């Protein structure tokens, strides 16, 4: 049972880091970005490219199955991927916003961005999977639970980043401005909040965390052009189950979906893994139509 919980938490970590950006963009720019998954992928591939630039992807370091170069490649990829997101926003989404595009148009545009990103990745890196490392990592045993060092890192990094996000949103002026813009952009403007700047930070933070998700996913599993897109469904499930507008609800939604996926693999069959989030959405919405922590619109 504990094993299941730990596996669920690992799965939930990737969903969590990815869904934060999805939720922020949804609340601040008012559309669900279908490109969020591919921004996870692009982050992972950017880190791989940078790590490869350093010559060797690096042998295992300190129990980790990837080399130390990842500690340089990750922050570089975060910056690059965030920059890419800002360019995409300026070139595409902002043009649509200025023209008063509907939510449907924004969603369609994000589909376009999703396809573009994925195909550019395939163009450069091909369809075949890539690996940060080929080293095989023996799992540790802690109180009878099998867990790899990589997975411990995933949980730890996610926990620290979520804590940072919480402090950012509740303590800093920029964080409070973001919550203000999410709730009422026109009142935010009246207060002197530069909404365009808040939107830029939304992309930076959301894509930054997505990049971390991609890299972590890359070194616990593998990199392939659909790695982020496959995460899109569970991310949407977490968003809906958590109630869209409440970031803490969404984080809990991510944990729930991660656990549901883990349970499905264990007790049903691994093939049902992708269907599990759907079942969770339906079940939750039947009883709580606005999600577990959602507010009535």
């Amino acid at each position, binding site marked *: 049972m504990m094993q299941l919980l730990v596996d669920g938490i690992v799965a939930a970590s990737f969903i969590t880091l990815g869904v934060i950006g999805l939720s922020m963009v949804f609340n601040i720019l008012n559309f669900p970005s279908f490109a969020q998954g591919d921004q996870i992928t692009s982050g992972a591939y950017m880190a791989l490219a940078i790590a490869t630039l350093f010559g060797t992807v690096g042998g295992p370091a300190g129990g980790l199955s990837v080399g130390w170069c990842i500690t340089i490649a990750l922050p570089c990829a975060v910056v690059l991927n965030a920059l890419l997101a800002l360019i995409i926003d300026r070139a595409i989404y902002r043009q649509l916003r200025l023209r008063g595009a509907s939510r449907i148009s924004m969603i369609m545009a994000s589909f376009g961005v999703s396809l573009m990103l994925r195909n550019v990745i395939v163009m450069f890196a091909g369809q075949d999977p890539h690996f940060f490392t080929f080293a095989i990592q023996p799992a540790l045993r802690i109180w009878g639970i099998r867990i790899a060092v990589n997975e411990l890192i995933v949980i730890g990094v996610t926990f620290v980043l979520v804590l940072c996000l919480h402090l950012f949103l509740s303590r800093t002026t920029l964080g*409070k*401005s973001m*919550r*203000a813009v999410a709730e009422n952009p026109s009142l935010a*403007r009246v*207060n002197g909040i530069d909404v365009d700047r808040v939107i830029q930070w939304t992309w930076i933070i959301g894509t930054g965390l997505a990049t971390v998700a991609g890299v972590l996913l890359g070194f616990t599993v593998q990199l392939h052009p659909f790695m982020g897109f496959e995460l899109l469904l569970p991310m949407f499930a977490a968003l809906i189950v958590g109630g869209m507008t409440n970031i803490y609800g969404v984080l809990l939604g991510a944990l729930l979906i991660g656990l549901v996926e883990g349970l499905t693999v264990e007790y049903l069959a691994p093939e049902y893994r992708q269907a599990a989030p759907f079942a969770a959405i339906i079940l939750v919405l039947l009883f709580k139509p606005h999600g577990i922590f959602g507010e009535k619109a």
Partner: protein
Amino acid sequence: MTETEPHLVVEHLVAGYVPDVPILRGASLNVNPGELVTVLGPNGAGKSTLIKAIAGMVPVKEGDVRVSGKSIRGIATHALVGAGVAYVPQTNNVFTRLSVEENLELGCICDITRTRERIEETYRLFPDLARLRRLAAGRLSGGQRQMVAVGRALMARPGLIMLDEPSAGLSPKMTDMVFQKLLEVRAGGVTILLVEQNAKAALAICDRGYVLAEGRDRFTGTGAELLSSPEVGELYLGSKSRLAS
């Protein structure tokens, strides 16, 4: 700014949400430093549009808006606070998911070094808010929300504050309380432009008033003059009876 220049000048303003369908059709008014001026008018006269056009939230086609002699026509709304003008919208004027104190904090975003001391000053003006500081603003009563909205607008220490129907949805007792606070604010040297539906209450506290109808300023005078003016009464009652039918 010369001695004679009013704090706020609105000149022949033509503005509306849709091109070629102006809601304001040449509205003018001026507010002298330290004055409390109210804008009245029947529903649809363009009162809210006037305030929003000043705030840069509605496209202005013709005319000018000057604050202390400087044109702010077509200003980006987020730059309004920097120009010394605060605006309290009629509805949704607090961030309901943020606490009272966070709401106040965001009012001071252009001068964050002063946030703490100004929050304390705001609590002195609205002692009730100090008690409610940790509460989400969405859980407050209508009157309390209005306090938060006014308190937040004052956080940036504006020279001019514009309020859009602060009495909307409030009980007469609450309206009195809010208006008393506005008098206190004016006593602190802040110029006030007040758009109101509640003509009697607004005329009782204002220095001067304008009556807006069909997008133009139709009458102006002191509170007492407007209260006793038969034309103003007719404009109101006429439109009211039309609305009722």
